[in-house]
């Protein structure tokens, strides 16, 4: 009994230390100069853009049962004859997630701050660095009024999500190796879970599901909509985190596929039936 208490105590201590370490990282991040965040965001987004462009232009999208999330169902497609030469098959799909993220309320904040410096950060000293003059500032009234199309990219994303789920299951229920769970399958599932969390925590989805109502008790099914709305609201509170986690999971999943395809690492099978 004493040993159990000791284990629990040690476990709790480790948990507390972990939480403290995380909060101290967050506190340290806040203490950094204001320009660190916009430069980091700009750097990460540019690097992601370069990597994903290189992949969809120059690389293939399938290895054994794994399909890169950058390619999804276009991995086995030929580019249609009507498409110009610079168009590759995944580009026929990628406009959806690209448009969804480019018009996302969180990424809007991120790129207005990181690329437009509108403003780069909230401190008084940072706001004085804003390059746009008062006359030229139009916010989301001029060109960026187009961001209101976000909800349509959300609707289109539902199809992408469905395919990514299908492809995650395809890594488990394979054609030639039977049913198996490999490290890759876990990665593919982690990726689609994070991408789904990002998609369904979207502000437009939250609005669609119940944010547009004033009175839940007035309509049939209002209670269910309210519960869904509250659930989506809880997800939505972490929308920025889902946005980053899913961006990195897409990246790692694709890199993993290329590493196993190149034979650099081996995809360990954890559980296998039949095949």
């Amino acid at each position, binding site marked *: 009994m004493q040993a159990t208490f000791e284990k629990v105590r040690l476990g709790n201590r480790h948990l507390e230390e972990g939480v403290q370490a995380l909060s101290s990282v967050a506190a340290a991040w806040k203490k950094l100069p204001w320009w660190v965040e916009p430069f980091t965001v700009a750097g990460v987004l540019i690097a992601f853009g370069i990597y994903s462009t290189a992949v969809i232009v120059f690389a293939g999208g399938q290895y054994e049962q794994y399909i890169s999330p950058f390619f999804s169902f276009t991995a086995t497609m030929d580019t249609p004859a009507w498409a110009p030469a610079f168009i590759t098959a995944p580009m026929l799909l990628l406009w959806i997630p690209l448009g969804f993220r480019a018009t996302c*309320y969180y990424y809007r904040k991120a790129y207005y701050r990181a690329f437009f410096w509108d403003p780069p950060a909230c401190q008084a000293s940072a706001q004085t660095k804003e390059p746009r003059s008062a006359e030229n*500032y139009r916010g989301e*009234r001029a060109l*960026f009024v187009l961001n*209101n199309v976000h909800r349509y990219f959300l609707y289109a994303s539902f199809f992408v999500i469905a395919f990514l789920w299908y492809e995650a299951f395809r890594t488990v229920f394979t054609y030639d190796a039977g049913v198996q769970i490999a490290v890759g399958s876990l990665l593919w599932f982690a990726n689609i879970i994070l991408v789904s969390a990002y998609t369904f925590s979207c502000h437009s989805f939250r609005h669609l599901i119940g*944010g*547009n109502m004033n009175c839940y008790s007035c309509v049939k099914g209002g209670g269910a909509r309210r519960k869904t709305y509250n659930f989506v609201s809880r997800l*939505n509170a972490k929308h920025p985190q889902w946005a980053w986690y899913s961006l990195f999971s897409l990246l790692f999943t694709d890199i993993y596929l290329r590493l196993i395809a190149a034979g650099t690492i081996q995809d360990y099978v954890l559980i296998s039936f039949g095949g």
Partner: protein
Amino acid sequence: MTENGNSAARAGAAAVADDGPKKTVKLNIFRGTEEDGKEVEYEVELAEGMVVLDAVLKIQAEQEDDLAVRWNCKAAHCGSCSAEINGKPKLLCKSRVEEYEGQEIHVQPLHAFPIIKDLVSDVSWNYEVSKGIKPFTSDEQAPFTMYEEDVERLYEPKKCIECFMCQDVCHVLRTHNKHEEFAGPRFFVRNQWLEMHPMDNQDRLEDVKEKDGVGLCNITKCCTEVCPVGIKITDNSIIPLKERVADEYYDPAKWLMRKIRGRKSMTNREAEAAKNGN
């Protein structure tokens, strides 16, 4: 110019006096007016648990009795003592001096509004904006019967203490001076509360879009970062309003449905029609 008078300020300072504090703290406080102002350095004895307002009041009581500062409850409830500490809007009564250990402390008034004197800005523009918002209007007589599930979202916007720090930090007002075209985060919080209220029957979306200029907000969330009562202004007020404005003005499918059905708006009106048994 001290809104609460020097005697009250001295009482406040006396309350924080400590028998034996040995440490001191230096504060650089803005002195002067909009046209002619600069920071002046003061040194005061540090007391345990001292907040910046305590230090300012101590300076007012012991060194500069004409130092202007607006304060009232000293409990982060009234929103009077909002100012800028090291370039960030803060409630002076909620900011401990210890938080700034190892840093210089610069205390400035809210810069998005005209500075009257020292730490006091003229925030009356906000009251004018407030008057322009369509008030709560209902067909029914109060007291209303309302259900928790319909009003639970309204508690958050009602927490606002009108400190106007969100208005101060908003670059649309602060940097771009769009006071004529833009109501600011505080009034989107108010509009959201009114728009989502189940008993209210006013339509404010045209005002939100045109008069209050929600399109000028580029959702960079500084307002949310500074809110002392933790209202998620951007996520829970501004973006829901932007989505409702998009329903009404930027959604071609909804526009088409309205044309076919001959109604101005779908969702809210539908709920209201169902409620009234139509």
